[in-house]
Structure formats: structure tokens, C-alpha cells
């Protein structure tokens, strides 16, 4: 569903960590004119290659986000830091990625058999996005510790949403970290989106105009009806929000005995 990336460094050079969502339930179900997985790969792999072309010191890391596990798929620094990309290299990179991806999917399938989660089936299965984000951030930290003299890494999270729904979490994550959030309309031109928007390095972003969503809704919503509210009641123990006065907090079970002026007295147990 998503391909999120993180970028580093303050000049032209970038370290890009791409998180590829390989949730099979999503991909298998996304038919009816949407992007099949093979087309998706056909757009993403050239994008990764083009990233390596932009600057010879660029580094690309691909991490796959599965349902039961996450793993590194490709790391351009592994290969020994080849300086030039030519046709042979491109083919080699593609085949590496595809092979590793296939292995990963097989492993994920094996793990799925062992767990009970699969029995639930259907629309409850979510990808382990937090796991892959953790892997990515740890990798970035490790690179920084071992090498560069850059003081504080800036890690903006860009989100490219492929799928029918917006992702509230990624929207907020991109906004807070200063990244780009985009849900492309024309999926057959996905590569153009990726190349025009997501391939820009951090230094260029200071003078480029990138698409931004209309606004991010940070308002809280009440726990009882799930509607966004501006004013409400807050449990003093667990800080959960309610739109109407409640006798007992539904989250932590604490007794909210304070009676409001217009209600009758609650009998204490």
C-alpha cells in the first residue's frame, strides 16, 4: 500500500531507505483497474536505479514490510560501492532485488502458516509498518555513527500512498518530520510521480515546491462516539476524552464521581 522513504544529508548526497509494503492481502485484492504488483515493481525498480544515477555517492536501501516480518531486500552499499551504473549493473540490481523479494515473501508465507492471525483473514491484516520504520531508523543511526561528520541527521518521512484510502498516520508523520505526502491519482504514471517528487534531495527541497495536502487534522476525537470534538471531558487518570459526562471511564475503569451541575447525584458504591 505504501512506499515510504527517509533521506539524509544536507548537500546533494542522499541516503534513501525505501519501505515497500508487500502485504499480500492488499495486493491480491487490489484488482479492478488498480495497480497489480508486477506493474508496481516495474515502476519502483527503475526509480531505485534512477536514485543511484542522480549522484554517485547516493545510497539506496530497500526494506520490505510484510505481514509477519520485515527484512532488508537491497543495500547499494553492499555491492562494494560501484561508481558507475551501466546496463549490466541495472540488470544485476534488478535481479538481486527480485530474487530477494521472492525469498522474503516465501519466508513470510511460512511464518503466516505458523500463526493464528491468518485464520482471521480478510480486512484485519495490517502490515508491520512500525517494525520496518524501526529497522530503517536504526540503520540510519548506524550509518551516522560510523561515518559522516554531519551533526544532526534530518530524517523526513515521505509517503506515497497506493491504494484506495488515505493513511492518517503517515499524513501526520510526514507533516511532523517535514516530508512529502502524496496519493497519486494516475497510477499508470507512478514512476513520474516518484521521479518528480520523491527523488528530490533535501538540499533541493529548500527551493522546490512540492505538493502538500490541504491540511492535517490533529483534532482529538472522543472515545465513545469517535467524532472529533473541540471541547469535552477528560478522565484525570488516563486522559481519555469523552464528549459527554460519563460515570466511569471506559478505558481505565476509574470512577468519575464528580457530578456536573445539571445531573442527579450518583450513589457511591
Amino acid at each position, binding site marked *: 500500500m505504501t512506499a515510504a522513504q527517509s533521506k539524509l544529508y544536507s548537500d546533494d548526497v542522499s541516503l534513501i531507505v525505501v519501505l515497500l509494503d508487500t502485504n499480500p492481502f492488499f*495486493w*491480491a485484492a487490489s484488482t479492478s483497474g488498480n495497480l497489480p*504488483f508486477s506493474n508496481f515493481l516495474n515502476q519502483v525498480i527503475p526509480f531505485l536505479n534512477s536514485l543511484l544515477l542522480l549522484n554517485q555517492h547516493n545510497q539506496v536501501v530497500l526494506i520490505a514490510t510484510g505481514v509477519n516480518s520485515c527484512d532488508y531486500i537491497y543495500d547499494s552499499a553492499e555491492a562494494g560501492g560501484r561508481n558507475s551504473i551501466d546496463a549490466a549493473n541495472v540488470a544485476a540490481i534488478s535481479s538481486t532485488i527480485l530474487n530477494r523479494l521472492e525469498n522474503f515473501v516465501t519466508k513470510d*508465507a511460512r511464518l503466516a502458516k505458523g500463526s493464528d492471525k491468518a485464520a482471521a483473514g480478510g480486512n484485519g491484516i495490517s502490515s508491520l509498518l512500525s517494525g520496518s520504520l524501526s529497522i530503517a531508523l536504526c540503520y540510519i543511526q548506524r550509518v551516522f555513527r560510523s561515518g559522516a561528520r554531519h551533526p544532526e541527521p534530518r530524517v523526513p518521512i515521505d509517503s506515497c500512498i497506493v491504494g484506495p*484510502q488515505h493513511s492518517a498516520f503517515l499524513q501526520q508523520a510526514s507533516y511532523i518530520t517535514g516530508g512529502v505526502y502524496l496519493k497519486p491519482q*494516475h497510477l499508470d*504514471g507512478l514512476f513520474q510521480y516518484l521521479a518528480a517528487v520523491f527523488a528530490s534531495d533535501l538540499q533541493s527541497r*529548500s527551493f522546490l515546491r512540492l505538493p502538500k495536502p490541504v491540511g492535517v487534522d490533529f483534532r482529538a476525537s472522543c472515545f465513545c462516539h469517535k467524532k472529533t470534538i473541540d471541547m469535552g471531558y477528560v478522565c484525570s487518570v488516563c486522559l481519555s476524552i469523552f464528549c459527554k459526562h460519563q460515570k466511569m471511564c471506559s478505558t481505565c475503569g476509574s470512577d468519575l464521581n464528580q457530578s456536573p451541575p445539571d445531573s442527579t447525584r450518583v450513589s457511591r458504591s
Partner: protein
Amino acid sequence: MAVINMAVKYKTTVKEHGIPGVLKMMEDRFAFVPNDPRSAMKLKVDFRTIKGHKFSKDGSKQALLNLTQDAEKGVGYIFEFDNFSDRNVCRDFVGKVLGKFQSVTPSKPNEQSVPEKPAALSHVEQLSTVEMERRMKLLREDSELQKLHKQFVISGVLTESEFWATRKSLLDDDENKASKQQAGFKSAMLADVRPSTDGRTNKVTFSLTPEIIHQIFAEKPAVHRAFLNFVPTKMTEKDFWTKYCRAEYLHRTKNSVAAAAEAAEDEELAVFLKHDDILANEARCKIRRVDPTLDMEADVGDDYIHLPDHGIFRDGSKETMDADYEIARRTLSQDLNRHAAVVLEGRALDVELGDTRTVAEALARSKQESSSDLPDENVNMERLAKVSRMTEIDDLQAPRSLPYAPLCIKDPREYFDSQHANALKALGDSGGMKSINCNMSTEEVYLYLRRQISEVKTRGLEIPVIQPEAALKVLDGLNQHLSSTRYHLGKNPQESVLDRLPHRTRDELMHHWMSIQELLQHFWSSYPITTAYLYNKVLRLKDAMSQIYQKLQEIKESVQSDFRHQVSLFVQPMLQALDAAFAHYDAEQQKKSAKSGSKQNGILETGIGKISRSLANS
């Protein structure tokens, strides 16, 4: 500006009875018409001839207002009012008018660096110079405040007193900064009370100042007691101090034999040489009051005295104590400690250090008052209880299991999933909560995925990667998206509207916001309107608010078209606040006119009643 009509008595001197009449004040002149049409004391005076005005304090016998023409001679028009509030209304009005006239005249050159204040300031309120200084200082330091002051007070919308009434905390702050700390005792006593020796004549001179005497009394309670007892009954003060100094000299020279001899001879001198028994008693009490449960472990690291090669080891076993005529051996450290203790206690006296006797008595009195009246019994009981508590051995206690309630927290996933739904609604997704319908089993989906991957492997990457038409479509869409200003443009998503406006506009908007706050504060505090003064104030405020309203509209229109929407959103709350104020004002006006209509009827009725009664009586 309004016209004021007031029933007053006009007089030329304060002692006169005064001619009753009506005082009418307008913007540029005032007129007085006596009630008695035959009287010739009609007045019509231009405010320009009035140089200043004086008034009696609130609460004095007469509510007077004196409009002076010549400041030196004090000649002017004196009006007596029925009550102080009426007088204050007129006074403020006059103050404003005079302020207007006098601010028109060119200001003196040395006032240019100082924020401008109306010259009538010194007349309107009887301020102390300290107060004025504070206000000027505040105005100088805070440019925002100065701008507000200039805008409202100089133009006459608010008076000085109103402006500063809400800022009392700012004014008081300065006052409290000057802390009133007491000066403690100097340590000079320990070092400076050294006699000056005259080598030739064998004379030793001590000089004791009242300060030193005060200190001596504080630090040596035995000397203090001796003073109270001996002077002036047994000896004069001079003799007392002579003996004291003799004792000090003997002590200093550490001539113990001579000291013992003299002490044996002179009883009073012996007092100065003995141990201070008052101090000894106090020390004993303190030792008894020490908390035995105090954890001394914290001090272990600080104890350097018992380290080898540190300090002077004192073996007290060899010292013998005789009962009487015992010459006290005071060490410097004892003196220092005592001095420090007294300094920490602080100065208990506020008495002038002139007469020694009074100082001694006052000190004795204060000591009596401060001596602890706490019943020792209670203190002891508390201490015993605490000791017994602390000496409990934890291991031997029974396990104390307190009742606890297990924590039960709902699954947080439920909340986050609902957040997801909300965010989708907020983003205006027309699809809504489309759940992914997957009818295939787990194996099937994974199989599908793997097949897709192998398909790519066999087919290889497509060439071209993307069709030109698709790319063009995408680029067009992106460009359109970027050029529409509906979305947050700019590199930083946290940037606000204000930052992208020209500086001048932004500053103006902020200043208007502050002015509106100030005006609304005064406006809402004036309701309910009970006096004419408040009524006038509200009128003035309303005029100022309408002006700002106009200005805001102008700003909205002058801004560039792409910013207009955002600026109007920004300005919206300001306009709403002003609208609310105007609406309230209109509503109050309506209520008032409805009431006054019925009132007039009432007056007519009572008037008719009176006439009919008088007719009946006649």
C-alpha cells in the same frame, strides 16, 4: 464629543456659598447659567483661556472643581458639585479638553526623547513623581505599550487613569524590586575592637561605637545581663565599659595569672572573665533537642576533621574545671561560631542605636518575647514517637499487603482504528471506509504475490518504463496542484499566513489586534452603565472601535488576491469580537430608550398628580 450639563454652584472663592445654576461644557467652551434668571452671573468662557484645573480630593467636605486661568495667582472659576461622581465626570471632560489644546502646542525639545503625555496629566491626577517616573519608564521600555498609549490616551479615547488601571501589576512590579533587606551585623567586632596602644604612655584605648555595643549585647548575653544589673545602680556606664575593656585586654594578652588576680579582687570584672553561663544553658538545651533519628551518614563525606593530618587534636581529658573564678578560655573558633549564630538570627531591634540603656532594655524585651513558649512536653512526646517509629526493624514486621485494584486498560487499537476513520473523513475521501474484501485464503494470496514477482523476473523490466502520455498527464496534474493557492504553499508546512504578508501589513494587523483587545477590555468593563461618565466612555470607545473596523476592512481589500481568503480568515475573529460589542451596545440602547419612554410617562403622571393635589389644596 458629548456636551455635559450639570447642576452646580458657582463661586469665586471657596468660602462663598455659591450661586446655584447649570454648567454646560462643550468641546471648546463652557457656559454657566444661574437658576435665578435675574442674576447677572452668566458665564461663557473659552477653554483656550483655561490653563489648568484643580479639584478637591474625593471625600472632602466640598466637591470642587477649579478652572484656573492663571496658574500662579490661582484665580479661576470654582464650581461646587452635589456629589463627587458628577464632579469627576466634569473633571475628566475638562482634562481631556485641556489635553487636546495643550498637546497641539509644540512640545519642548527635551521631551522629544520621552514618550508624549498630555500636559494636563499633572492636573488631572495628583500623582507622585515616583508614580509618574514609573509610568514613563514603562512606556519607554515597551514600545507596544507606548503605541497603545499614544493611540488612545493622546487622542482622548481613554483617560490616563483608565489606561493604567488595568496595568497595576506592571506598575507594582517595579516597586517590589527594591527589596528591603536588613543589613546584618558586621564581623568587624571580632577584629577591629583592638586597642590602640600608645607606646610612650602605656595607655590602651578602646573605641566602642553604638553598633559595636549592640553587637556585644547580642553576642554575649552575660555582659548584657551584667549591664542591666550594674548600670546605673552600681556603676556608671563608663566604668562598666572600662572594666569590660580591661577584661578584654587581659584576655587578649592571655595573661592568665594577672587575670586571675584581678578577678579575685574585682567582682564585676570577674563577670567578664567567666564563662558565659547563659550561653552554656542555651547550648545544653539545644543538645537536648537534637533529633536522634537524624541520618548522619550524609555528612560522612564532609567530615575532614578526623582525617589524619587535619585539624588540631584536642584532648579534653586534661582540662580541669574549677567552680568559681574560672577564667574562660575562649578560642577564636568559638567567637566566630557565636558571631555567625547571632548574624543568622538577624537583627531583632529597630531601635535607634543611641542610648545604650534603651538598647539593652529593648534587647532584653525582644529576647523575652522570642524565647520559645512551646511547651516542652509536646515537643518531647513528638520526638519520642518519632524515635519509636524510626527504630522499627523492617525485617521483623509482618508483611503489609495494601489493597490494590488491578489496572484494566482497553485495547488501544480500537482508538487508533477510529482515528483512522476520522482522518479519512477529514481528508474528504469520497471512498470512505472501503474495507478490502479479500476472499482468498492465505496461501492463495501469497501464491499470487510470488507469481507476480516471477512474472517480472521472466518478462524483465518494461521499456519504456512509462508511457509519454501518462507522464504528461501526471506532470500536468502536479503543476495544477502546485499552482493553486488553496493548499499550503511554501517550503515549511509550519509557516503561517502572517509570515508571507508584507511586513507593514503584518505589523498593522498585530497592532490592530492589540488595540481591539484594549478597547474591548474597557468596553465590557463599563457595563452595566450606571453613570454618565461610563456612558460617555462607552461612546468614545465605540467610535474608536468603528474606526478600527474600517481600517480592518481596508486592509482586507488591499491585500493581494491570492492572500485575501487567508487574511480574511485571520481577521475574522477580530471582526466577530467587534460585532459582538456593537450588538451589545445597540441592544442596551434599545432597552434604555424603551425604559426611558416609560419613565417619562411616569414623570408626567407624578407631575399631574402633584398639580391636581395642589389644586385640591388651594
